């Protein structure tokens, strides 16, 4: 009991102390200001204004500390149930001057209720240490005949559940679980060490490899309803190079441009690199350069390499080399209405085949996207890619798409896609995509 009342006294003294300290300098200031005013009438107005301001500030302070005290009390009560914590504490601490102000000051624009003046809303405090949680769902519909695609007419292709949080002063964690018709899997789950010296950033866990641009993007973050042909043919399609391992990256500070080098090593259990031997690993390296051309435009260029084992036999390997370039234009004054982005990725693949010469293949896509109104985007993509196992077979195609974002948290997209397959067949398809996110606000992809 004594502890509690002692504590209460300390709080009251602190509050009063703060109030006095807060008032003194401003009073002093008011005084000096008044002396500068020549006219007596103006001085009176000034003093009145100043008093109003002081009163407002004091009220705020009072409301704030009243709230904090009430919070403290609640927390104490929650900590231990027992008579020890029962003594009632007034919501608003005693005032130094009992004559001063009721709940709402008579004069002055500030008529804030104590609860709403508190900087922290008490609601949600129980969630303090819970990770940011969100769900993003991706629904795709397809129409038109394509003998090479097994995409159904309607499909909730993925519901992605994500948890993100700071772990401790040294690291943060990101976990993405993807539920799809194939089942539930960990799409990504990694720890990022954010506080290493010397511009290093280390990630450990399962993650999408830093190979080019498309490979790093989750399906719902793609600018199109599908992935480019070159990704399907050479870089593992939707799943891509996504594997368990370690990623180390470092900024290379210089005055010319942003330069980042990344080195990664994976187990070899992705849809591109496969092995059941521990000693055979998949390595990925990337160098990315970025420079602002103007405040509204920039250029982002990268080179990536990936090599590692493939299934099919001992010592059979695959090597991928990628080059990507992105140009972005977004006038800052009209940033929410207008933007343009052009991107291309070129990928070369070399694949060892059992009892056959090495297969070499090349593919690329080029994409342009333009935002022409606050919620509308239009774009097109050109595709061309040989097949990894057979360079003589080349698929090509093109798409145009229109996206509508009702809000930041949902988007509708229509896409017309024409594909000309190596076998000579053409497929004309209409894709429709709806994706939406609920829960914590995620970071925008850049």
């Amino acid at each position, binding site marked *: 009991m004594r502890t509690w009342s002692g504590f209460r006294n300390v709080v009251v003294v602190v509050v009063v102390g703060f109030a006095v300290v807060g008032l003194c300098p401003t009073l002093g*200031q008011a005084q*000096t*200001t008044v002396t*500068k005013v020549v006219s007596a009438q103006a001085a009176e*107005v*000034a003093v009145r*204004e100043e008093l109003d301001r002081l009163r407002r500030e004091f009220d705020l302070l009072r409301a704030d500390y009243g709230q904090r005290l009430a919070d403290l009390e609640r927390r104490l009560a929650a900590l231990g149930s027992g008579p020890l914590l029962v003594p009632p504490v007034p919501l608003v601490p005693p005032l130094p001057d009992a004559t001063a102000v009721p709940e709402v000051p008579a004069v002055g*624009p*500030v008529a*804030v209720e104590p*609860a*709403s*003046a508190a*900087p*922290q*809303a008490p609601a*949600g405090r129980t969630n303090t240490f819970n990770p940011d949680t969100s769900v993003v769902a991706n629904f795709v519909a397809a129409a038109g005949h394509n003998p090479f695609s097994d995409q159904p007419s309607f499909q909730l292709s993925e519901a992605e559940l994500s948890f993100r949080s*700071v772990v401790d*002063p040294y690291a943060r964690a990101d976990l993405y679980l993807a539920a799809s018709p194939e089942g539930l899997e960990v799409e990504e789950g990694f720890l*990022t060490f*954010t*506080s*290493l010296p*010397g*511009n*290093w*950033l280390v990630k450990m866990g399962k993650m999408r490899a830093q190979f080019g641009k498309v490979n790093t993007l989750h399906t719902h973050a793609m600018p199109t309803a599908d992935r480019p042909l070159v990704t399907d043919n050479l870089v593992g399609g939707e799943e891509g190079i996504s594997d368990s391992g370690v990623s*180390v990256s*470092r*900024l*290379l*500070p*210089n*005055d010319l441009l*942003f*330069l980042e*080098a990344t080195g990664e*090593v994976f187990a070899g259990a992705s849809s591109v690199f496969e092995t059941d031997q521990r*000693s055979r*690993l998949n*390595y990925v*390296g990337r160098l*990315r350069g*970025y420079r*602002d051309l103007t405040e509204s435009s920039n250029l982002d260029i990268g080179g990536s390499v990936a090599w590692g084992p493939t299934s099919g036999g001992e010592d059979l390997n695959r090597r991928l080399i990628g080059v990507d370039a992105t140009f*972005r234009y*977004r006038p*800052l*004054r*009209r*940033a*929410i*209405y207008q933007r343009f982005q052009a991107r291309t990725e070129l990928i070369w693949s070399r694949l060892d085949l059992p009892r056959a010469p090495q297969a070499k293949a090349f593919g690329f896509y080029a994409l342009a996207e333009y935002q022409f109104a*606050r*919620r509308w985007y239009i774009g097109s993509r050109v595709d061309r890619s040989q097949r990894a196992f057979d360079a003589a077979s080349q698929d090509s195609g093109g798409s145009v798409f229109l996206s509508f974002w009702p809000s*930041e948290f949902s988007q509708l997209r229509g896409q017309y896609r024409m594909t000309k397959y190596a076998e000579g067949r053409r497929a004309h398809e209409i894709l429709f995509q709806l994706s939406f996110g609920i829960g914590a*606000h995620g*970071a*925008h992809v*850049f």
Partner: protein
Amino acid sequence: MRYFLSLVVLVLVLAATATTAATTARAVRAVPAAATLRVVATTEDLASLAREVGGDKVTVDAIAKGYQDPHFVEAKPSFILKFSRADLLLIVGRELEIGWLPSLINNSRNSKIQVGASGYLDASADVKILDIPTGQITRAMGDVHPSGNPHYWLDPGNGRIMARSIRDRLTQLDRANAAYYAQRYDDFDTRLAAAELRWDAMMAPHHGSKMVTYHRSWPNFVDRFRLDVIGYVEPKPGVPPSPSHTLTLIEEMKSQDVMIIAIEPYFDSKTPKQIGGQTGAEVLVLAPSVGGVPGTDDYIKLFDYNVKLLADALARAGK
């Protein structure tokens, strides 16, 4: 084993290259005195306050320009570079920067400015916050900020508190210059107090005047200067104007005789101008942040500009 070795070699080569590059870059950069604290602020307002308090003991970079919507800033790698070198990061908080700040902090590789570190300062901690939603919050309400309206810097009283927080943090990081920061703060406080008297006098004849704004950027401003916002061009925060809402707003403005529509420089003025045409109200482009329009180069000039523009327009309208 062979692969493990090659991995080690790869990392070493990478580290060696990186270190060489870093050393070279440092040699190039090391021209100015290394004693100054590098401050990065998410907005120009925070940057201006940091300059007021920090003087020539700090170098200050702002991320969002004053004429840019601070909710929608791109997390450009060039910003990562700034973050990686910063000693102190100043943020507005209240989820204003939620869409872009986390990825910049995560990729900064700078332990000094991680959330909770001594180089991370959320300037909203002690200020007066309005529009804290009560009850159930859903996104059906538009882009609501669960912890209150983040445009709080538009009350000069809050600016004073923000400057004080900055002073305290700079002092904590750089005790040797404590007296310098204290003196700079006191000087700013005095100038701000004098300016407040000036602004209050200019706005005094217009207390209670009604206006419409585009977005809910101005609650602290109108609260401070005793104006009355009766509606918004946006039907809900972050939602673009709709015809039905615009019609309702026009009717409301006519019935209440509202003669001012205030918009931010980053919003399309088409709908506000249409509303102005229908109601006779004047469309004013106010500066929501330092540098938002020419002539708003620092925190005090920001209010000089806005107060004068509003007071003149209200006087013209006879309000």
